[in-house]
């Protein structure tokens, strides 16, 4: 697969379609600006504390989206395929963390002061660490085997073929999750320190805004993971090999790079990120069930497209942006919070129509789009 530097298909610059598109875009932007003005200054529907609450939850959610989106972007950058089952890998990671917490909860670790203490509450840091390690390892392994079984034999086949295979794998994993763990929603039992709802209280305006500890954990971990990932891709030998494979597989293999090995490692990496996102999702939002990965998966894909697919910083930005839009959007647009998923999908469609290369997008060559 060669990366061509040819420009996109030449379209006439002032076709009817483009004119209509531009007019619609301008009208929509004006409407949006007016809404924002109206909501904040004209007829404020919420106080500043509520907006702060929305923004905080949006940033936390966005950082989880960013982690998942990077998984999509890594795989897409190398194989030019959407790993449709990525959300399900996140689900596997979430279940891994859940079972670690459940197991540790049943191990007694009594101290002199508290005889009923269990391991989970006695050593919360170790427990959380274990949960992340197990969740990430499980997810990474499932990503690896997914590639081995469902994608590797199809390399070089027409693009529809691996995509359908990915859809099939996604359905399979989802239903395997349902059959194994049942369809009921399970509560993530966090250590008491990390119990949901507890957090720093900050006074903003008239009310008190709580920044949850789970959210802080999520943010900090995301930052650490993102920085180390960036270093891995930019500085390490493996990262260089990954970039080379993404650029041109044939040349990379001629340079002595084990292309298949790099692809496997990419899937391990993206699986581990999805696993971390899954455990964060469980710890922060507290619910895990077989369908937990599907919607975040699609949204993270949206985020990846938003930032320009194949682009790592783009995926991070896209994730944060999507998280913010999802939490602030319904308030700004004055619509029901039930419809926040509709907003995410609408953004996806709009971005793909107006700027298919994303916010930070590289110019996508014909065969990538």
């Amino acid at each position, binding site marked *: 697969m060669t990366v061509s530097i040819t420009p996109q298909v030449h379209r006439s610059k002032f076709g009817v379609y483009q004119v209509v598109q531009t007019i619609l875009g301008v009208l929509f932007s004006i409407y949006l600006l007016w809404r924002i003005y109206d909501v904040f200054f004209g007829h404020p529907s919420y106080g500043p504390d509520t907006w702060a609450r929305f923004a905080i939850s949006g940033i936390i959610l966005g950082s989880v989206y960013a982690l998942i989106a990077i998984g999509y972007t890594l795989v897409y950058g190398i194989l030019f395929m959407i790993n449709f089952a990525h959300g399900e890998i996140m689900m596997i990671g979430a279940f891994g963390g859940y079972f670690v917490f459940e197991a540790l909860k049943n191990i007694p670790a009594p101290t002199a002061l508290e005889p009923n203490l269990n391991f989970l509450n006695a050593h919360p840091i170790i427990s959380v660490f274990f949960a992340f390690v197990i969740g990430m390892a499980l997810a990474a392994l499932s990503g690896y085997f997914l590639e081995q079984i469902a994608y590797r*034999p199809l*390399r*070089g*086949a027409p693009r529809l073929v691996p995509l359908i295979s990915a859809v*099939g794998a996604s359905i399979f994993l989802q239903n395997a999750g349902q*059959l194994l763990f049942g369809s*009921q929603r399970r509560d993530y039992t966090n250590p008491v320190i990390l119990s949901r709802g507890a957090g720093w209280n900050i006074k903003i305006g008239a009310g008190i805004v709580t920044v949850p500890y789970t959210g802080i954990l999520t943010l900090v971990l995301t930052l650490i993971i993102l920085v180390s990932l960036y270093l891995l891709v930019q500085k390490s030998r493996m990262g260089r090999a990954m970039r080379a494979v993404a650029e041109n597989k044939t040349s990379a293999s001629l340079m002595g790079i084990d292309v298949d090995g790099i692809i496997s490692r990419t899937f391990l990496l993206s699986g581990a990120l999805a696993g971390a996102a899954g455990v964060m999702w469980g710890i922060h939002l507290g619910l895990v069930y077989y369908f937990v990965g599907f919607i975040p998966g699609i949204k993270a894909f949206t985020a990846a497209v938003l930032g320009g697919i194949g682009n790592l910083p783009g995926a991070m930005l896209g994730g944060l942006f999507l998280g913010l839009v999802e939490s602030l959007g319904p308030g700004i647009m004055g619509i029901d919070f*039930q*419809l926040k998923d509709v907003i995410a999908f609408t953004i996806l469609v709009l971005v793909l129509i107006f700027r298919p290369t994303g916010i930070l997008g590289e110019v996508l060559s014909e065969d990538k789009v």
Partner: protein
Amino acid sequence: MKTLLKNGLKAGIPFGIVSIFLFLIGFNSTIADIILKFIKIDDKTVVFGLTSRPLALLMFMGVIGFWAGTNSGRKIKNKTSSVIILSTLAGLTHGVLVALVSYTIGSLSESGLKINTYLAAMLTQTIKLFLLDKTPLAGAVFMLIFLTIMGALGGLVSFSYDRANTRQKMVSGWKNLTVKINQQPVVRHIQTNPLTRYILYGLILICLIVVPLIAGSYWNYTIGTVGIYVLLGLGLNIIVGMSGLLVLGYVAFFAIGAYTVSLLTAPLPHHLMWNFWWTIPIAMLLAALAGILLGIPVLRMRGDYLAIVTLGFGEIIRILIKSDLLTSFTGGPKGVTAVGGPTLFGRPFSSEIDFVYLIFLAVLFAIFVTVRLQNSRVGRAWEAMREDETVSRAMGIDTLWQKLLAFAIGAALAGLAGVFFASRNQFTGPEDHSLMVSINVLSVVIVGGMGSIPGVIAGAFVLKGLPEILRELENYRVLTFGALLVIMMLVRPEGLIPPSRRKLDTNQDAVLDSKKQDERPE
């Protein structure tokens, strides 16, 4: 010896994982019941101290163990002793994995832990059954020995046969067979002589008329469902199969059809009470319009993006239908009840038979339309577009227009299917239009053969008809669909009945590519 050990482990571990997975989702006990349904084992029969249900389970496990043995034998050819050692090793690995897991779970369950709070299918009796109604240790050891023996037996059967070669022979044999059948004078006669062909059509028509009269109400309902899926499959076949646009939100058009008829004929929420027949063209038109409206912005994208955007569109439609915003218009999460049915000459369609005939008529109409389209200029343009969009554009095909046409026609057929679906069930709700419908229809098209009309019909029968016969496997249906999609792509991407015109088919590409990969030095 070391490589032998390694190969044995390599061959045994996948089977071990599959067996454990099947055990954990409770598949084994279901299949034991099915085996008992087909093979009558007397309750009093006792073999090796086992009663009927464990015996049936053991039969199934035996098949898997046997397969593990035969599968491992393919690595080494013509060396009897090493093949048997290898297959025994594979069987042993398989057995050890299964025994370990079943022993752990069995003893945990004995100690009073409720496993099914974590693993939903692990009821106490399921675990008991898998351990063959023995103590955990005895059951696990029994299973271990049994699987090892079955692996060795499998190796015995497989030795000296070259599996890769056999598979190739099977594939080429199948192809030769189809060619041979086509060359038979009788078949040629049918194909070329219009008279015999019409007689054949007539026979099929008589079958279609007679079968619903014989079948009971339940089977007619099933036949109707299959028919609706044939309709949907034919529509999606135009979009995915003929024009090569992967659309994952096909259910949206189905929903538009179903809701059009529901809102126009039901007493609530609008009390319009229109005649059913009028709603059919309206529903088809609306669905086609939705297809065009969705198509205009979306069709400039290719492949993967199109798939995700259409998937998003399908979800948007479902969320909108459910939302409070539109509850007064669509009936919200509760759906629309008492959807009107058709009446003909003053006689309402009440029984399933009437609907089956109606659906048959619609299916015949759809087949007629798609066959005519496929052989027309439009159909050829679609196929050119599917094979290579840039080239087809260079050949002067207005691809955007052709895509819109494909979208509109495919959507209209989905709308038609939606009308029958809602009207037959006299109900429609948002959960009837979940993503699963899109996936089911896609499976129908892909399993049948993308772009092939007989394939779609066969696919609908296989995926929607067969599961009705094996109702016990209901829980595992969607799982099988997922696995089937992957397996079809790996093994036979062209489907059960591939279209005849497709010369440059996907499989050929894959074969060429895999050959290229094989040639690469390790």
